């Protein structure tokens, strides 16, 4: 029973997913495939996505609250938690990420509730997929075992593939799903082979055991197998966090997917992958010979971080589509977070800075995609910069919402994004990775350029004569999602102490 209490957030999502699935399957179709009362084409038969979205969002927020509750109870007091280890490690680290993931996922579900009916994609399958995918993401972030990691990763990914491919009549969505699926399968293969090599080298599949075997001086492990396995494992995880050169699926999948699915990917998939990356590296590969300043994984990740930030920012500046720009910017953000991961080796606040970064990034990016959703209605999505021209003057609320989240992504105080960057670069400086911090700062400057470009279009341009004019949708769902995200972004920005304290506590209990 105690064990069930420990994994209560996971159970809430899982059981909630089953209920949502049943509701979706047996609920009376509101608008069988065809046209709705307004004469728009409805993609699928199930309908009722609005109600089901509400349910899914409630379930996810309930799970986030359950995580907070468990945090307050103190996961270390739950003896039953040991029963689910090492596949699920319920510690403050996991709870922090569960909270982040569920919040991001809940926002995405609310967005979907507004988006799907508005754009003729009234498909409630989205929500069970999102919930079970979230189960996978939560398992991924909590797992300290190759097996748990793999199963969690695949559960998360398969759900996301399907969410992307949900819009069946759309070539771009279909292409995006195909590409992401093929590459995702390939990456999973690489990751799994890495896990197999590590198992071969150490005889363990759990990362605590792997770390202990590496540290054991009496029976030396095969360095070749460990390093080879680590390389493949890093490759697989780098794919999910979309670090360059494993990033190439990101812009295509983000652009092709329905926007709520995009925000789910940007918020949940990336965050869970970072959780896993951090846990794997700290518990399994924290040996001084692997977490070394001149060899081992820190230099590798440092290079990845630099390349990722720079590439993401450079290419994001050249996009015509805001959605694709946000995709590239999410690549750049992976680079910034990697800076924090690297600084784990020399700074006690390194891990906390990554946790904080992911929390801030999740809510900011979910909000930014939400604002993009808000700017389209009745099947006409705002996608390009031109679409947004003048919207800030015509629709101040939409403009302010968009501007706010973009400023957070750009790292302008007093938003969450500012403190997230501040912490990450601070941790890098503390680890004496000065050049990494400097490159990061330069990159933030470049990044500010393309975020501000959106503001320029919104406030200083008028749409070309005859061009379609974007009109914001009127949806309580999207508005609620944006309000939730904005409160979090602003709250974290005004009270960074609280969440940083939480992130710091979370890292203390993680790992071996």
């Amino acid at each position, binding site marked *: 029973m105690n064990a069930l209490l420990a994994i209560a957030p996971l159970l809430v999502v899982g059981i909630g997913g089953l209920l949502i699935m049943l509701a979706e399957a047996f609920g009376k179709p509101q608008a069988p495939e065809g046209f709705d009362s307004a004469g728009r084409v409805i993609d699928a038969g199930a309908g009722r996505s609005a109600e089901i979205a509400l349910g899914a969002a409630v379930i996810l927020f309930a799970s986030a609250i359950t995580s907070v509750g468990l945090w307050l109870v103190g996961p270390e007091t739950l003896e039953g938690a040991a029963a689910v280890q090492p596949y699920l490690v319920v510690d403050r680290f996991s709870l922090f990420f569960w909270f982040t993931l569920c919040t991001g996922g809940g926002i995405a579900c609310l967005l979907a509730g507004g988006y799907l009916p508005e754009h003729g994609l009234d498909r409630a399958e989205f929500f069970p997929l999102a919930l079970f995918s979230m189960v996978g993401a939560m398992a991924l972030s909590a797992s300290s075992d190759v097996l748990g990691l793999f199963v969690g990763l695949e559960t998360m990914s398969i759900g996301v593939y399907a969410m992307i491919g949900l819009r069946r009549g759309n070539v771009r969505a279909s292409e995006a799903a195909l*590409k992401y699926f*093929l*590459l995702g399968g*390939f*990456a999973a293969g690489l990751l799994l082979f890495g896990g197999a090599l590590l198992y071969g080298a150490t005889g363990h599949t759990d990362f605590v055991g792997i*770390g202990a075997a590496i540290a054991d001086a009496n029976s030396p492990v095969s*360095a*070749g197998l460990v*390093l*080879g396995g*680590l*390389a*493949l494992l*890093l*490759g697989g995880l*780098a*794919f999910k966090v979309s670090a*360059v*050169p*494993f990033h*190439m699926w990101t812009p*295509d999948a983000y652009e092709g997917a329905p926007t709520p699915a995009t925000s789910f990917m940007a918020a949940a998939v990336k965050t869970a992958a970072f959780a896993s990356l951090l846990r794997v590296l*700290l*518990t399994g590969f*924290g*040996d*001084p*010979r*692997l977490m*070394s*300043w*001149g*060899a*081992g994984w820190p*230099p*590798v990740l440092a290079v990845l971080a630099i390349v990722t930030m720079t*590439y993401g920012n*450079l*290419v*994001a500046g*050249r996009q015509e589509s805001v959605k694709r720009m946000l995709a590239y910017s999410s690549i750049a953000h992976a680079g910034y977070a990697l800076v924090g991961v690297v600084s784990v080796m*020399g700074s*006690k*606040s390194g*891990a*906390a800075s990554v946790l904080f970064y992911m929390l801030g990034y999740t809510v900011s990016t979910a909000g930014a995609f939400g604002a993009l959703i808000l700017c389209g209605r009745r099947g006409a999505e705002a996608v390009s910069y031109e679409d947004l021209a003048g919207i800030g003057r015509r629709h101040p609320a939409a403009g302010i919402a968009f501007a706010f989240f973009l400023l957070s992504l750009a790292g302008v105080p*007093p938003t969450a994004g500012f403190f997230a960057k501040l912490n990450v670069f*601070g941790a890098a400086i503390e*680890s*004496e*990775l*000065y050049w990494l911090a400097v490159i990061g700062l330069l990159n933030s400057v470049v990044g500010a350029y393309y975020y501000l470009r959106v503001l320029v279009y919104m406030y200083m341009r008028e749409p070309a004569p005859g061009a379609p004019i974007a009109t914001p949708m009127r949806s309580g769902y999207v508005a609620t999602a944006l309000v939730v995200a904005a409160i979090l972004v602003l709250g974290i920005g*005004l*009270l*960074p*102490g609280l969440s940083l304290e939480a992130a*710091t506590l979370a*890292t*203390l209990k993680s*790992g071996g």
Partner: protein
Amino acid sequence: MLEALFPSDDFRLLAIIVALPLLGAVVNGVFGKRLGREAATLMGLGTIFLSFCLCVATFFRLAELQEGERAARLVWHGWQWLPLSPYRGGPGDQIWLEFALSVDALSGAMSLVVTGVGFLIHLYSSKYMQEDPGFTRFFCYLNLFIFSMLVLILGDSLPVLFVGWEGVGLCSYLLIGFWYGEEKNAAAGKKAFITNRIGDFGLLVAMGLLMFYVGALDWKGLEAGAENLLQPQQIWPFGSHIPFFDKLGSFGEWVNTPRAVTAATLVGLALFLGCAGKSAQIPLYVWLPDAMAGPTPVSALIHAATMVTAGVYLVCRMSFVFVMSPAAMFTVALIGALTALFAAMIAFAQNDIKKVLAYSTVSQLGYMFLGVGVGAFTAGFFHVVTHAFFKACLFLGAGSVIHAMHARIHDTDASQDMRNMGGLRKYMPYTFWTFAVSWAAIVGFPLTSGFFSKDEILLKAFTSGIASPLPDGKVGIGAREIEIWQWPPWAGYLLYGLGFVTAVCTAFYMTRLFIGIFFGEFRGWKIVKGYKAAHGHDDHHDHGSHHAELGLAIQGPKPHESPWQMWVPLAVLATLAGVGGFLNAHLFHLHPFDSWLEPVFADAAKHVKLVEGAEGYVYPLLGLAVLAFAGGVGAAYYVYVQQRGEPAQRFTEALPGLHRAAEQKFLVDELYEETAIGSVDSLADVAVVADKWVVDGIIARFTAFVVGAAGSVLRFLQNGRVQAYSLSMVVGVALIGWMLLAPRAEARTRVDDEKGVYSVTAAPGLGYSYRWDANGDGEWDTKDYAAANEISLTLEVAQKRTVSFEVKNALGQTAMGEVPLERPKPDRSGAFEPAPAPPDGAPPPDADAEQNAERALKIIENLPGIKQPPAPPASGEPQ
């Protein structure tokens, strides 16, 4: 009751005071359109009024606590806001800066002024802006401004103050550009924004320096640690020397001579740069006159009464830092005096009544800085208060006039031109009388508020100065010792002289303005020919047929008095401007204001010295001040009333000499415009060219081009095909694998140049083994590889050696690394060489922060690859 509800160590009332205007802003901003005008007005006015009442309550609570010499402070501890130190391990191990608000005598007085005057101006605006389509937006901004200003005043630390500082800047920008449709307004907003950024840079630098030297940013911590600012800081040359100038003999020697100032001077100057930006002092004053493009109540509230005095407030707030540096104080006083004179002279030439008032504001701000610069903080701050009264009143009066004129002329520029006015005394009696009182105050009519405050500043400028913070005037130890700059003996004469001339000028141009608006005949029956035809006709579509043909008589209502919402604030402010001086009338030994603020400036006052026999100067200088007032007003009366009173033809015939003199006077104005403004313009042109070609063209454009081109090239790698994507992944995995597997010969060096002990550590790695060549003879010390990854060696002075090592990985591949080591000769500049280690081998005295920083720099310079703290190799503890 107040005490029970709000204990003095957790004075939550401050949060409420600050939050009320914010509430008003949010409600008006979000729901304004739905609420309608009445509700929006009520919200805006109500919140400010409540806030004002609470400020009064706070004030009384403070007065209760403040008995005698003890300075009272009420603090509200908000929340932990910014980490000041890196995280070190345990929870609660980190030093945080709180988001805290606090109030003491100084901020209490200032908050009263802000909310009080703010409320009056809100009331005024509710009528003035009535017809504007952006009515609720205006009130939202105005409330937001009051909120930011209160954060600025009540913030308990520099960063919190900075939040308010930026907030008021933002509101000012929004309100200047309120009618953003007009190009001119938008440009003015931009100008204000940019100029303020320069000042903000100074403030940020000051915060960084204070953090470095004092280690705190809140008032309490700063006060406690201000002594740390008394240390020398080398500012030239950068590094040890400037390389090229070595070859230039004695000139090069001179160039390379180390120069140092105290840290307090650096901090003071940086802070003052911030103040100069916000308070429109030379050279950053340019934005304020343009800022008058905003609605007139905005000019009154933000650009005259409150925001622009934030700089003076900051100097008062940081007085204990400024007095540490006589040089910084002299800069403040001198810049203040020069600005006062400079702006006053520009004001002669203006015909736009708001421009005249704008330049007079700049000039009066200069007075305030003159006051605080000579150490007369209460006098300077008292002028802030009186100026808030009379300048707000003047601006609102001007607004009332413009309101009346605009109803007739329908042209923004023409309705502000005093050549179209005159004789308005008859039409607008309330406005006239209130304006008259304020005019009397600003020109220093005896017994008005301006008379007392200005007289006090002038007196102190003559008699007061800053003494050296240390008795012997020297700071530092041994070779690092420097002498602190002292005030020259003539400082008092110079500052007083500038101040006196300014007083005369002020009296002159203000009288000219006063006469021009209210006396003589009304000239607005037709518009002065040839005036301001520059703006295009399409600027004013909205006025349509009303647009007047220049030089022709125009139809329109007679000028009329404004409604009560507009003249009541005028009356209140005029009363205050008239009698407010008795708050600090030293002449009659009435100085409650002084005694109220005394505890705040008690620390700073210790460093202020008075000249011999200062008491004896009081009455002679008083006489001079009255003379300045009488001279200025008399001259203006003579020139403008008498000259205009008679037909120009007869005047010229009768008194050709005087006419020529008057003409020449005019020419001086012209000349002044040509030289001062012209040179500023041409300077600006140069700056524009430089900006266009160097900053914008080369730096910005080129960088943008490179970034853009790189982006364009890179994005074509993304060719959309799965095969390419997966190939990139495979290459990525291969590179990661290669980086992980290949032996990496990275080393870091721990350097102790003083003792000559160097230790080299090779990066640990899984499966690595090492062999070393520590003695630099080119042979490996041992043939076999061993696990040891660290060696240590000793070098003589100026000895060089290259240590090599070879790393073998698990697969048997090897890599070689080399570390060149050199023990440097002592620093060539000599003067700033750290003290040599004691000969008896005792550990050197604890090096100060600067030496540590130098050493850290050296370590950084010597390290290849990734650096680590020079502490023991704790690199790899798993967490």
